[in-house]
């Protein structure tokens, strides 16, 4: 009887993990959208006043990632030390890269928050309440902008 119970419980656990995994896979299909078009949609929805375009070297410096490892990388970063607005769009060559990117993006946000904590109230608020780290299949977006909801909506509809 015990053996049956143990067997049932282990398969229940395995089944729950499998269902959860399936739901994650179904939620994030791969996109064949052109990365330039996605970037245009994202930047079109954001207010770029407090941002400037970033180079590959800047992506490497701010996120510690190598843009050549990805299919495409785009960056708008703060225009000055007193700004916190930022947009990073990456098209992955392999969806598994999403993990390292999410880690790098969270670390970048943490660094920025530490910079503005107790110093720049508006910037800290922006980084706390208007920052989105959004992996979506083979795309990845980091958006720190007042209208982050609109940027996210534009991002998803462009995929």
């Amino acid at each position, binding site marked *: 009887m015990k053996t049956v119970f143990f067997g049932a419980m*282990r398969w229940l656990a395995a089944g729950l993990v499998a269902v959860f995994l399936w739901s994650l896979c179904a939620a994030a299909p791969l996109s064949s959208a052109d990365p330039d078009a996605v970037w245009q949609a994202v930047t079109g929805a954001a207010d770029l006043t407090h941002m400037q375009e970033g180079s590959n070297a800047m992506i490497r410096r701010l996120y*510690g990632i190598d843009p050549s490892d990805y299919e495409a990388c785009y960056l708008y970063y703060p225009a000055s030390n007193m700004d916190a607005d930022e947009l990073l769009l990456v098209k992955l060559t392999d969806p598994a890269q999403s993990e390292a990117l999410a880690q790098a993006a969270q670390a970048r946000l943490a660094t920025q928050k530490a910079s503005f904590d107790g110093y720049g109230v508006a910037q800290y608020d922006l980084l706390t309440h208007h920052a989105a780290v959004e992996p979506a299949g083979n795309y990845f977006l980091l958006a720190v902008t007042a209208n982050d909801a609109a940027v996210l909506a534009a991002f998803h509809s462009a995929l």
Partner: protein
Amino acid sequence: MSFSQLSFVFLFLPVCLLGYFLTPKQAKPFALLIFSLLFIAWGNPRDLVFIGGSVVFHYFSGLQVEHADRAGKKGLKKAVVITTVAADLLLLGFFKYYTFLWAQLAAVLPLPAAVSVPVAPVGVSFFTFSVLSYLLDVSAGRVKAQRSLWKLALYVCFFPKLVSGPIAAYEQMEAQLAAPALSRANVESGSRRFVVGLAKKVLLANTLNGFFAALTDPAAQPSVLGVWLAVFSYAFMLYFDFSGYSDMAIGLGRVFGYHLPENFRYPYLSGSVTDFWRRWHISLGAWFKNYVYIPLGGSRAGTARTVCNLAVVWLLTGLWHGANWTFVVWGLYHLALLLCEKFILRKPLAKTPGFVRGVFTFVLVILGWVFFFNPTLPAAGRMLAGAFGYHMPAVSNGSLYTLLSAGAWLAVAAVGCTPLPAKLGRAVTRRGGVWSGLATAAVFALLLAACIAGMMNDTFASFLYAQF
């Protein structure tokens, strides 16, 4: 969350230590489990489902295996072990290898686009090997099945070792799970070890990473000198990155009263490639030896079988690091070197002076890293050819400039790979007395301050082995 992030050092760790040491002794392991779960959730709450599900699955698998064994149901026991291992490999394979395998198949077959693979749970390669270790130890009768779900959860989720090991076999950890060896000496030595690891990562690995990135930048003018500088930078960076992480994990473990196995023993001083693999990522080597090589028959079933067993182990070792042909070739490269040493060069090597063997081994190992860090085989091939002057100028302005700026760091890194700094530290602490204590405290305070400055100045650089 990475150990070298300010949020970990200044927020998570102090809160965790405070909570842990304020908790009554009996409840400390449970408190540590709670903090480990928080650590996982901090990175991605969804990972709790995968890791928690895996713990529950293996908890009942272990109990079922033991129960079937006691009841003499060998067929059932075998079936439970096989299905559990298969489920583990399926999950690991889906996260790590599915996209790669699908791409290989899609190249020859008319297949639809692969489904999107979600971000892999934190430390998936490491916790999968931990749970496999548990099941296989129970199945072999080396340990009893764990009756306490939370103790098994602590073994799997213990946050110092979760992300990048060391892969502690269940057999090694079982006795410690409910009874951590708490002492002031452990807290002191563990803290020192943590700071040493942090310094290896922040001061050395991250700095060398800057040189490596500059040397391998597609815009950089390639040269033989540049290639060798890149190879040296990467070799030292990888060592300080991963051994730094291991030091931090072992140090943290010790602070909490848990002994984690060593992962490195001055690998770049090895006298042969065989020796290198007894000193580099020791816990992974031990895992493959105990759970793959020996069960396959090891070296006791004749030469052909030994070669076959080694081939399986090195193919798996290569693939464990990632789904890419470069890792497969890297594994096979080491297999070839080990077979040469075992069957061809054993006698000549025994007669070769130790220093010559050491240099020869070091060069062979760092050339192997070329497959490790290049994204494709052609890129690795071009780099290896370039290292020996094929279609490449001897020097370039950029490589000369990097030599001048990186030379001192590479020299420091080379010394850091030897036991010299540790010997120096021990010489100071062994003297005892107030001055020795003050000197030790001052050195570690300075190291920590330098690390904090480095962490604030540097942008984020994740641990290299966290991606495997």
